[in-house]
């Protein structure tokens, strides 16, 4: 009986905490707690402000919408430009004015009206088998669809946000018909039905099922930090595509302030902290992501890959083509 009382007490305590007004800030996060906890702990240590986190994916937007003016959320953390522009266009965010944010985050990495701010960048890179691929054969996303790659390419599902973002980028550079041709040819080059996450593609290269894959760069970073997965990562070369022309496709993780934030002062403090040099460096050290703030020291691994030309296509342009991209993937039957 005691155990049950204790359990109920503990649960009630967790429920009650956010409703007590105190020094705190409430975050709805699409990002896994383990990826942001170190930064949030750093913030709480420095300011004494407690950060409450709700992590979820499917339905977060609907929860925010339905809760309306009474939502406890002060901040929204998310990955992918699509989600950031979704929360903005749903009218769930507010414009934030902060000189600190403006100084730390470059123009291209934040919303014109200040509704969302990028925190880190992730590059969509190409990896190739060290043994079986001549890196000169594949230097751009366009090369993925070339005849030389027949039966050799692996990717995750074409409906996943990262593949949709890539396709949306192709649409905004080449127009829809040409992008569709590219996706059709890429589909024809696939070594297997799209499956698994980005890490699984690297593993498949190590195992000889495929020769070439498209992945987000930090998966390489993560594999190099897991003793069991180091051999996978070491079986591939890393290529930053399209260095000769527009640069490598980048997506972002970012933050936005909820329209009905109750702790907006604390929320702003947290935003500024996450854009600060210290937190930005932690993102690079712990998660292997590229800091948006220029001049922040990169982690050793990122330094080893070196600087590269980034595609500076307007992120909202990519967001705008997402719907077309996912339908295009349906038409070419990418996942079949």
């Amino acid at each position, binding site marked *: 009986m005691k155990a049950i009382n204790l*359990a109920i007490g503990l649960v009630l305590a*967790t429920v009650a905490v956010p409703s007590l007004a105190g020094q705190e800030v409430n975050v709805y996060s699409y990002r896994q707690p383990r990826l942001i906890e170190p930064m949030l702990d750093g913030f709480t240590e420095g300011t004494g402000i407690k950060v409450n986190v709700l992590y979820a*994916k*499917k339905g977060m937007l*609907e929860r925010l919408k339905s809760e309306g003016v009474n939502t406890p959320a002060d901040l929204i953390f998310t990955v992918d430009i699509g989600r950031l522009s979704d929360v903005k266009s749903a009218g769930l965010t507010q414009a934030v004015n902060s000189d600190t944010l403006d100084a730390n985050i470059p123009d291209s990495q934040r919303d014109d009206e200040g509704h969302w701010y990028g925190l880190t960048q992730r590059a969509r890179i190409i990896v190739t088998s060290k043994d079986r691929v001549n890196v000169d054969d594949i230097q751009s996303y366009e090369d993925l669809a070339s005849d030389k790659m027949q039966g050799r390419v692996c990717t995750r599902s074409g409906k996943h946000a990262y593949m949709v973002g890539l396709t949306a980028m192709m649409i905004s550079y080449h127009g829809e018909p040409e992008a569709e041709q590219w996706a059709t040819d890429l589909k024809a080059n696939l070594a297997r039905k799209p499956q698994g*996450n980005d890490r699984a593609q690297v593993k498949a290269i*190590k*195992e000889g099922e495929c020769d070439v894959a498209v992945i987000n760069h930090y998966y390489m970073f993560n594999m190099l930090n897991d003793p069991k997965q180091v051999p996978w990562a070491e079986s591939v070369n890393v290529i930053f595509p399209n260095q000769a022309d527009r640069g490598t496709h980048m997506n972002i993780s970012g933050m936005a302030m909820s329209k009905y934030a109750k702790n907006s002062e604390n929320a702003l403090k947290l935003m500024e902290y996450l854009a600060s040099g210290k937190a930005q460096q932690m993102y690079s050290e712990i998660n292997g992501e590229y800091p948006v703030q220029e001049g922040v020291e990169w982690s050793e691994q990122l330094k080893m890959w070196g600087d590269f030309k980034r595609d500076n296509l307007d992120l909202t342009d990519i967001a705008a083509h997402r719907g077309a991209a996912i339908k295009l993937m349906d038409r070419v039957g990418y996942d079949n």
Partner: protein
Amino acid sequence: MSETGAKTIGAPTLKKRFRVDFWQVGSFLFAALAVLPVLAIIWLALFPEENIWPHLISTSLPGYIKSTLILMLGVGVSVFLTGVSTAWLVTHYEFPLRREFEWMLLLPLAIPAYVIAYMYTDLLEFAGPVQQLLRSVFGWELARDYWFPNIRSMGGGILMMGLVLYPYVYLLARAAFLEQSPNQFEASRLLGNSQFKSFLKVSLPIARPAIVVGVALALMETLNDFGTIDFFAIRTLTAGLYDVWLGMGNLGGAAQIATTMLTFVILLLSLEYFGRRRQRFYQSGQRFKAKTRMQLPGRRAWWLTLFCAVPVIAGFVIPVSLLVNLSIDYFDVSWTPRFRQYALNSLLLSGLAALFAVLIALLITYTRRLNRNSRRMLFVSRVASLGYAVPGAVLAVGVIIPFAAWDNWIDALARQWLGFSTGLLLSGTIFAVVFAYVVRFLAVSIGSIESSLSRVSESMDMAARTLGYPAHKVLTKFHLPLIKGGILTAGMVVFVDSMKELPATLILRPFNFETLATYVYQFASDEMIGESALGALFIVLAGLIPVIFLSRTISRSNVVQSTRETI
């Protein structure tokens, strides 16, 4: 009211007119609450962002439908064969370890489908031990050097889901076989029918309602699964639904797909119902006459042991061993002292959900019986079961909408009349999570209790009511002892299912609140299988507690069981 009042078993018609029937009012109320999220989804389906169907029909819809049907057919056949055959063996044959297998056959229920999928992928994929061994024996090097069945395929998906879902059928079929009077079966044997023919012609038809409930539950679970099919790249309707909702940002379109799936399930179930509407099976008297189990001669009995061992080994022993193995390898990165709290949270939420699901199911099922299975009560019990036919994340949105609307309404009233804000009272509390569990799993408890209660002859109610017992006394004094097994089964399955539930927990929970399932998810969602293993192991272990405890209670409560020694 008066019309149904007249139908009520043994109730005086005159008195009835002046009395509110609390049984029916209660049933209506809870059924209405349970169907609220489904109604919210249907409401959403009326307002799509754009008409999604022309695009879907011309592109992926035929593929979605095809793979959905193949998957459901495959899983349906698999759970039926495994569940019914093992249930039949443990109830009608005597063989070594039979008593142990009675509960061990339930064990795979504790394993989430996506976890078993991960474990078998680890075992059977290219880098796994099986293929490594083959390569070292035959001198192959790359995957293209030889052929090996790909576990990440339709066949693999059917196999995985069949392994963890057959216990639904086993549980209900076993309970039905146990409650069957041996008289009919013996009569069939005396008439010269073989053991197998008597099973086919007598026992199976009597157990049909229970088996159908079991298979239907397994199929709905299959229809709504996302974790496994996503990992195995099987593109079912559920995958399409998530594409439309999250990829194209069209919640209304997704709700339309959900509504279509719902209609499909309702059609399927009503077909079955009409198929047997004229049949009704009751136990004839002397239920507790000792049942003789057939003893196969000598070594042949071990074949039965082996047969029952296959699903237990494949569905539990192998995946759990792999899980233990991984947990040890990754212990340092995955152990957190907070596991204790997460486990407590999981146990508390699941316990509450099981309790409420059983109470509400009892109320609705018994009211239906009181009203002699009136059409109205049939409708009520079916409507209350709809939550199971909707994918978890969609159902969660269906919970969010009415809860937030209610909270905001109360808040607006308070602001207007009392001058202060109440904020959100129900949204984002554990109440919302438990509510979602109950809505989602009510079908399980209704199905189990209903199939149990339907086997108790109605002449018993009539006799009891004639003797002057009021309705609730009949339930507590006569029915409860008889259907105890069905009730415990219902509670156990809801409990274990709630332990594993993920999408609704994730989105409805309060801040800083983790259950074992949500904790595992943050790694599993990234296919970080090693890091998620320890948490998954905890889910399995916590799910085992009720499985073992309750299956023992079921065994003990069964008088037939205790006479075994005297045979």
